[in-house]
């Protein structure tokens, strides 16, 4: 892990545990009596974090995570917009120690908030509305208009054919409700539905198997380790048992026993005297 990684990690951890920092809390609680200031500070903090998220979303290369982050930003925006009316109500309230100009300033701040909230880019804002963004590709809705037209072209060819088929089908239906082709079509419809279900089940099975593969690898390694441990233990046990039963050790044991008895007898004799 490089120094930079360590630094970023430390920063993240510090930010996470900021709420335990007593001094910082004291600073934040300066506006403790003033409900407006507290709520406004909270909204500002949320705004900042939403902006940061939007920035990182725009830099994000992985499309799927960009989508998820954009959705988060949108959700935060909706929530903040709900808070604005509350702030407006609080802004008009008179708080002791506050001059008339500050009250007016607060009102302005609250009025400016909705614009700031809307200005947070969530990946779909038509940013260049006024500046002739017709050529620029910033406006998503315009792109959609274009691409929808293109896709519709391609698809439309197909739908011409298929609408032709459908018309034929309807005509035949009207003419002969019990003709063979009608039954065939019905049968084919049912087959296609069954195939859809099969396809869905097959993909689910595929994903499930993908999920099981790393688990099986883990089981494999663990069982291998356990087997080798067992083998080791068995070999050591065999050695120990063999050692206990070897005849050499028995002779040594008997000789030592005789020596000890001899020494004991000698001492007994000496002490008896």
């Amino acid at each position: 892990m490089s120094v930079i990684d360590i630094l970023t990690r430390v920063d993240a951890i510090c930010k996470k545990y900021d709420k335990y920092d007593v001094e910082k809390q004291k600073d934040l609680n300066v506006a403790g009596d003033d409900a407006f200031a507290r709520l406004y500070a909270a909204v500002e903090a949320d705004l900042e974090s939403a902006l940061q998220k939007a920035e990182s979303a725009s830099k994000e290369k992985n499309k799927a995570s960009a989508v998820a982050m954009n959705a988060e930003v949108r959700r935060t925006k909706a929530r903040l917009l709900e808070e604005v009316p509350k702030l407006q109500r609080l802004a008009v309230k008179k708080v002791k120690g506050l001059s008339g100009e500050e009250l007016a300033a607060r009102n302005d701040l609250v009025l400016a908030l909705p614009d700031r909230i809307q200005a947070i880019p969530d990946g779909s804002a038509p940013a260049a509305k006024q500046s002739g963004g017709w050529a620029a590709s910033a406006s998503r809705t315009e792109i959609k208009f274009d691409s929808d037209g293109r896709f519709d072209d391609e698809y439309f060819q197909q739908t011409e054919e298929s609408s032709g088929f459908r018309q034929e089908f309807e005509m035949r239906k009207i003419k002969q409700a019990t003709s063979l082709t009608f039954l065939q079509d019905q049968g084919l419809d049912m087959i296609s539905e069954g195939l859809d279900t099969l396809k869905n089940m097959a993909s689910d099975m595929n994903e499930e198997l993908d999920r099981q593969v790393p688990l099986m690898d883990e089981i494999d390694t663990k069982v291998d380790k356990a087997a080798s441990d067992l083998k080791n233990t068995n070999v050591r046990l065999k050695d120990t048992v063999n050692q206990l039963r070897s005849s050499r050790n028995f002779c040594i044991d008997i000789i030592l026993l005789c020596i000890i008895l001899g020494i004991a007898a000698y001492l007994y004799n000496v002490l008896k005297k």
Partner: protein
Amino acid sequence: MASSDPNKLMAKADKLTKLSLTRWSADWKSATQLYEQAAIGYRVAKNHEKAKIAFEKASKGQEMLSSPWDAAKHMESAAALAKELGNWTEVADFYKRASELYMVCGRPQPASDALAKGARALEDAVPDEAIQLYTDACSILEEDDKEQMAFDLYRAATCIYIKLEKYTDAATFLLRWGLAADKCSATNSQCKAYLSAIIVYLYAHDFKQAEKCYNDCSQIDVFLRNDHGRCASKLLSAYSEGDIEEIKRLGQSSIISNLDHVIIRLARKLPTGEVSALKTEAAEEHEEPLDENDLT
């Protein structure tokens, strides 16, 4: 085992752990054993309150003995008993503590399992807390690169959101699910997640969001070319044309029937509200840029 035995065991264990003039350090080893026996005795006697307390103390003892795994297991048992008692805050706390202990052991899988169990227990009583637990469990698994396991959790959390009728939150969560599926290349689940998100937005009668969502998701090739993507585009075009029959037909189609059953219920109820109103709105929007073009 008579029911007085657990009481005696508890009393003995408490004496062993209480510090006094004659005892300068608590004997956690024997105390933990006694706590465990007492807890099992209480559980057999169906005395949930005392069993829960005994399990808590046993868990604390195991922590003192530096075996977080056993401590976590005892915490889980205590949490299960708290659930029987209906003490929801304690349930949440215990499961969270158990999860932390599992993480200390370095085993994220049981940690997230513990949180998932807690969330399931709290689903009916305190759904917000349950959602929080599910989110935490998902993050633990994602940090460990095991997103595949998180799919069930995402599904359960989405169901709770929809039950609470918090549709934007549900859709955001579905998009997070799509992200997790993308990381482990589970394309089928990813496309299903995106289609479900679009359906949720449409059900909440938020056509603009649904369009934005579709635009975002069509950046991802897999979704664009997939059946689900085509179904989504058909749905949106049916909405913009105000074609109620088409919407109903798509709602019955087999692609939607392969999604999660909660989403199927929503899809069958489409369209909600006035579809023709959306048609005129969409037409107006498209006129504006053309006007600017005339000016420039």
